[in-house]
């Protein structure tokens, strides 16, 4: 019985599908979900406006990326997915892909090749961390410090965070184990290549928490990306971690006495996913948009509005000047060789396994 219903349902679903694909019709309206603020407006300028002009499609913006995973799951359960393209960080994309909530992408088939002739797979390279995730930007979590509050010797390496003798005062760190535990181990003498091996063991986790214990009283824990820039601007902290784009706008656009410590910056990715279960018209439209918005030129265009590095290798030479400030953007990219002398790439697969466990331990540690 159940089987027959399913068969019937499949046939019914397939019928319009074949028809729609046959005449290549795509939806005239799409909902794109992103983070809001300066980031969304950079996408608006670089992708949405040109795409609308080219195709006449109406783009509706939704600023729900922070809750995207939970909302997509709820929409999927309700059988009514109202989003067409969703901007998420890579770890969320992996989660969505694991849960079967995102569409798997055939990168070479469905994405534009690079301007330099490379295939999409070659162009994105290592950044293709999930079958469902189309990378858009590389951003980094790094440390900014108040030039006027750190004394005569400005910090040059990440361990300044743990050095409360040379740099007394409050610092801010993100309220989650990711990044903080890596930095703690790194500054406790663990070699960069061994960090995750050490962190897999109970003793390694204790070692990281013990290192964090040494600064626990001088840390303000943030959970919103805007927190650290505000705390720095108010002089509430002398240094703190946040996203590099936020620090860029604090330094260049708001002219605050703040400088960046690129050492041990942690690269992370942000990009698009297409929800699973869209109607064929909407799916075709979403794929068409994503193909346009992630080509070499468009990714380079976005860096005119925000200091995040384009995810394609072929876009890097095209990075130009800031749209309103007129300064060269290349030196502000986290991927710029001068900034990227010592970097980490967020270890997605490792954290997908250890996140639940370490988050619980981190919360206990915080409340002790």
């Amino acid at each position: 019985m159940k089987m027959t219903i399913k068969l019937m349902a499949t046939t019914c679903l397939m019928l319009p599908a074949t028809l729609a694909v046959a005449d290549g019709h795509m939806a005239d309206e799409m909902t794109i979900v992103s983070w809001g603020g300066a980031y969304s407006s950079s996408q608006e300028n670089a992708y949405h406006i040109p795409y609308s002009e080219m195709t006449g499609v109406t783009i509706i913006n939704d600023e729900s990326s922070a809750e995207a995973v939970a909302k997509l799951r709820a929409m999927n359960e309700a059988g009514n997915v109202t989003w067409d393209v969703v901007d998420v960080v890579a770890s969320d994309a992996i989660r969505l892909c694991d849960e079967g909530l995102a569409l798997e992408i055939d990168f070479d088939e469905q994405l534009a090749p690079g301007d330099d002739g490379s295939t999409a797979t070659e162009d994105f390279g290592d950044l293709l961390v999930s079958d469902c995730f189309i990378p858009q930007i590389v951003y980094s979590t790094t440390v900014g410090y108040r030039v006027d509050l750190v004394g005569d010797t400005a910090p040059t390496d990440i361990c300044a965070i743990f050095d409360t003798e040379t740099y007394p005062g409050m610092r801010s760190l993100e309220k989650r184990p990711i990044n903080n535990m890596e930095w703690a181990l790194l500054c406790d003498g663990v070699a960069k290549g061994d960090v995750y091996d050490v962190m897999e063991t109970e003793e390694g986790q204790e070692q990281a928490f013990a290192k964090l214990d040494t600064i626990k009283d001088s840390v303000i824990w943030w959970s919103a990306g805007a927190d650290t820039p505000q705390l720095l601007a108010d002089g509430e902290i002398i240094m703190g971690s946040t996203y590099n784009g936020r620090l860029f706008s604090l330094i260049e656009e708001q002219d605050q006495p703040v400088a960046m410590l690129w050492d041990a910056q942690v690269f992370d990715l942000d990009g698009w996913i297409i929800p699973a279960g869209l109607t064929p018209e909407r799916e075709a439209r979403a794929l068409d948009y994503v193909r346009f918005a992630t080509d070499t030129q468009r990714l380079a265009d976005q860096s005119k509005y925000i200091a995040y590095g384009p995810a394609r290798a072929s876009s890097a030479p095209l990075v130009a000047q800031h749209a309103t400030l007129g300064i060269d953007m290349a030196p502000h990219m986290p991927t710029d060789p001068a900034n990227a002398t010592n970097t980490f790439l967020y270890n997605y697969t490792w954290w997908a396994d250890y996140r639940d466990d370490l988050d619980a331990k981190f919360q206990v540690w915080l409340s002790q």
Partner: protein
Amino acid sequence: MTLVLAADGRPLKTSLNRALRRQKLRALMLIAPLLIFILVSFVMPIADMLFRSVENEIVVETLPRTVATLDGWDSESGQAPDEDVFTALYFDLVLAAEYKTHTRLGSRLNYEMTGISSLFRKSGRSVDDFPTNNYTDVIQAADTSYGDPAQWAAWMADDVVRAALPMTANIYDAWAKMIVDTEEDLPIEEVPWDFVYTSLYLEVMEGADPPISLDLSTVAPVTLRDQFYDVDKDWLDPEVWKIIKIYSPEYTNGYFLNSVDRLKGPEGVEVRPDNEQIYITLFIRTMIMSGSIMGMCVLLGYPIAWLLANLPARKANMLMILVLLPFWTSLLVRTSAWKVLLQQQGVINDTLVWYHSTWLGQFLDPIFMGFLNLCYAFVNVITWVWNVLNGIWGGTDGLYMDWAVAGFERLALINNQTGTVIAMTHILLPFMILPLFSVMKTIPISYLRAAKSLGATNWTAFWRVYFPQSIPGIGAGCILVFILSIGYYITPELVGGTKGVFISNRIAYHISSSLNWGLAAALGTILLVIVMGLYWMYDKIVGIDNVKLGG
């Protein structure tokens, strides 16, 4: 006794009942739209969400054969299960990987044991590459009928063949369903996949009678246990299998055990290690802090409500607007405003520093310090009670400020419990003032005058005459504020630092970040039960009839 009859000759009682029933039905029809709306949009979603706290069908749905075979495995043996279980796992995992449900199961089990998520993701990817195509090749070479989809379909419709090869029939059915569901092809046109041949091989080797006789004794067998071990050596870890076995029933109390810092072990309930115990602390903290917020609201709201109720109308209206103003401001704006005020370089601390530098400050500081230490003494007592509740006796350094030593220290008013209490009190204050106001409005001020004219002092007149009449308002305000505050999570997240966060912050985390909805539902259910318990207690002590939201 004679029966009283109505005009139509029926007994009056029956007739009356009928009229009343019709009336009740009509009344029910009138409220039906609202009733249905509430049921559909409120009661059912909540019930559905709460049900997730025990629901656990995912394991048995994704790995039905494995779970059935695993019954025979002794979890105390210290050994991973034998080949039978791995064979079942192979069939289940190939199918699950096609349906893409294996990763979902992986994330589910990863809540219980770190590493299972990638174990399933990795295995789902490699399970297609197991060298079971050997079997396929040999069987198809033995007789071409075995490579004919139509012949397979005919066999599998034949009850004799099905009876002879029960496992293969089962696997073939699952394969056929999968082909229809995911590949959108017809099984009658598709050659069965390797795992169907694997099943056929295994049954033939055990002596079953295939439709066309096969001699498979020369085929080199593939040990699936070794294949899985090659993908990830964790498959031979008995702990992984223990978790799968413990969580194989369709319903589990595991989520509830997690939410009270317990663990579902093979022998029963175990206490979690110290570095993973968090929820009970958070529940107690949520209750105590919500209680303090409620208390602060009563203390601050009562005089304001009194003013509102007793000032001349024009002034009262002005004051009312001030009370309502926060309602019209965004929650985030209000919380951020508190940040600006309370932070160490903020308005309040800056003012205190400035005041300290004036001669007045130099003169009054010792007095202020005395007062501060009095407050600290109070905080110390609360901390001590808090620690005792948490089972810690002694060992706390009490707060004490020695001015001569410390000089002026900027106060830590935010990113701790103080910050949460201040900001939440401000946000929830209107919910205390409004019910208090509407109750006080109905208390005639002449009662106070009467009491005084009968010789009562101001205090007696208030305490014996006015206050008892305002209790229904306090009750309503307290219930509102308390229930709202235990569910708040945005404000505590922003101003609570590490020690000022509530259980609702963890619920929000599990709903939106970790996607552990089962645990979130269990935590939510516990919270709901606690609130209902407190409500019941309130009803027993004060009486719910004494709660008034208005006139």
